[in-house]
């Protein structure tokens, strides 16, 4: 255990430790969880020289205010985030995403808000000093699984840092801003349960993201989808990004912390290449769905991964 740590002066709305997720446990009822936006997660780690197995802090809407009490560290913030660094002499530095900053003892990092997006990430060089549970540091707060006793970060918590940074060099990369309102999907296993006109509507009409949205699911509002077969099916295993339609005809997209099994018919499933776009949508935004075939989805995912590799390759030292 190291002696270097931050103190939490403000927790933010939903601040948790996350990594890629916890696998091989869905048959025991443990959802994989992990970072909502895996692209921003990987880039944050890469900027500070970590592998993408390292845990980061994920925050939603309003982030935390952290004071570095002991040690020196290098951080990177990704997503679309408004933040500032308050030096111990009260000088403030306006923060830029996708680059690193060195924090000295007494400095504060004030993560004010995510902009037109839901989630942001903070990684630090060498990683956080947190406990693994079943090979992952992802927090599943509903089931109290993961580091920090499975709880969200709260005021006065101590956040331990594994190493004291020696390297003063800073790095940055460029990410072209993307925002997609068309989310590509594959037809779901019960696509045929829905009326022909509803199938057409689903791929042509807009849906609004409702306030009832969290890490587990996203409720959408739009034209009612009519079911002509049955509004219940035998409970079956769930896949991330499944779009289920309960009896009220309003779709729910199951997100990263999805329940492991469920019994509503699924009209579609978000493709992996577009999942992070959807996860970053905020209540009130409008989206529409476009149907693609499996091979295309697989190809798009390859391109998505290549794109992330390109961003990581372009990490350069700041002069």
């Amino acid at each position, binding site marked *: 255990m190291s002696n270097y740590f931050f103190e939490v002066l403000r927790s933010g709305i939903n601040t948790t430790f996350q990594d890629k997720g916890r696998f091989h446990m869905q048959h025991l009822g443990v959802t994989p969880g992990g970072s909502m936006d895996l692209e921003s997660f990987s880039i944050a780690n890469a900027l500070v020289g970590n592998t993408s197995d390292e845990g980061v802090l994920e925050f939603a809407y309003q982030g935390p205010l952290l004071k570095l009490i002991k040690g020196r560290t290098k951080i990177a913030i990704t997503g679309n985030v408004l933040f500032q660094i308050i030096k111990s002499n009260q000088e403030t530095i306006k923060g830029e995403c996708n680059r690193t900053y060195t924090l000295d003892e007494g400095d504060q990092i004030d993560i004010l808000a995510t902009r037109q997006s839901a989630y942001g990430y903070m990684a630090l060089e060498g990683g956080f000093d947190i406990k693994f549970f079943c090979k992952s540091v992802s927090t599943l707060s509903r089931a*109290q699984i993961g580091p920090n006793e499975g709880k969200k970060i709260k005021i006065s918590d101590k956040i331990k840092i594994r190493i004291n940074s020696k390297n003063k060099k800073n790095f940055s990369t460029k990410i072209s801003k993307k925002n997609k309102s068309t989310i590509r999907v594959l037809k779901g296993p019960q696509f045929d349960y829905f009326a022909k006109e509803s199938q057409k509507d689903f791929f042509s009409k807009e849906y609004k993201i409702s306030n009832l949205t969290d890490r587990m699911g996203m409720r959408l509002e739009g034209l009612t989808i009519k079911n002509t077969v049955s509004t219940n099916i*035998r409970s079956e295993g769930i896949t991330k990004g499944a779009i289920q339609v309960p009896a009220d005809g309003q779709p729910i997209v199951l997100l990263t912390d999805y329940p492991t099994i469920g019994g509503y018919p699924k009209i579609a499933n978000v493709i992996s290449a577009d999942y992070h776009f959807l996860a970053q949508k905020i209540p009130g935004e409008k989206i529409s769905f476009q149907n693609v075939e499996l091979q295309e989805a697989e190809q798009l995912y390859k391109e998505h991964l290549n794109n992330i590799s390109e961003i990581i390759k372009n990490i350069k030292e700041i002069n």
Partner: protein
Amino acid sequence: MIKKLSNIGDCGVVCDFGEEVNREINTRVIKLFHHVKKEVLKGNLNGILNYTPSYNKLIINFDLEKINSSKIIDFLKSVDFSKLNFSQNSKKWTIPVCYDFEMDLGNVSRTLKMNKDEIINIHLNTDFFVYMVGFVPGHPFMGDLRSKLFLNRLKTPRVKIPAGSVGIVEKFCNIYPYESPGGWNIIGRTPTKLFNVQNESSPCLLSPGDLVKFQSISKKEFEKLFNE
């Protein structure tokens, strides 16, 4: 054996064993589940992340960077079901239950026109089979109750049910691992932890395919076991 194989999203495959819910079909699902799990642990199926059995289906989730659904479907088509063993992977458990913590036995007794002891006796004498575990960590769906005990869900689900509550609906019995809302008919409570984060090597008590029998305990024994 598998009626239909199809993709679900671009990183999932569904093995569908047919529409019925019975032990025979579910046993096939669980045989395949154990087989896939073993192959993954042996390192023969790189990229598989999860294998989730339910009553009549097995869903396999994978990392699209490493493998794709056509490769998994090819593997599943090559499985020889006659060579899969079931019994060596199935554990037997006795779970203590205190019926003094019931919430619905009075209503159940009136609905079924049976006295409470008779209901408890049937429950105690049932050899339960774990069809699946899920929704939340450690939550088992067990069957089969005799048709004499078949009940519907509560018309209005409760907002709060204590952890360890034992509920029945239709031919199924469940145990709530966490305090949560729920609509099952609660007939007792167990002090046994179904999911224990302190036990990292084996946090979940029950696995799909396990066998469970209940054992009646007094309130005093409940308190003692609960505080252990």
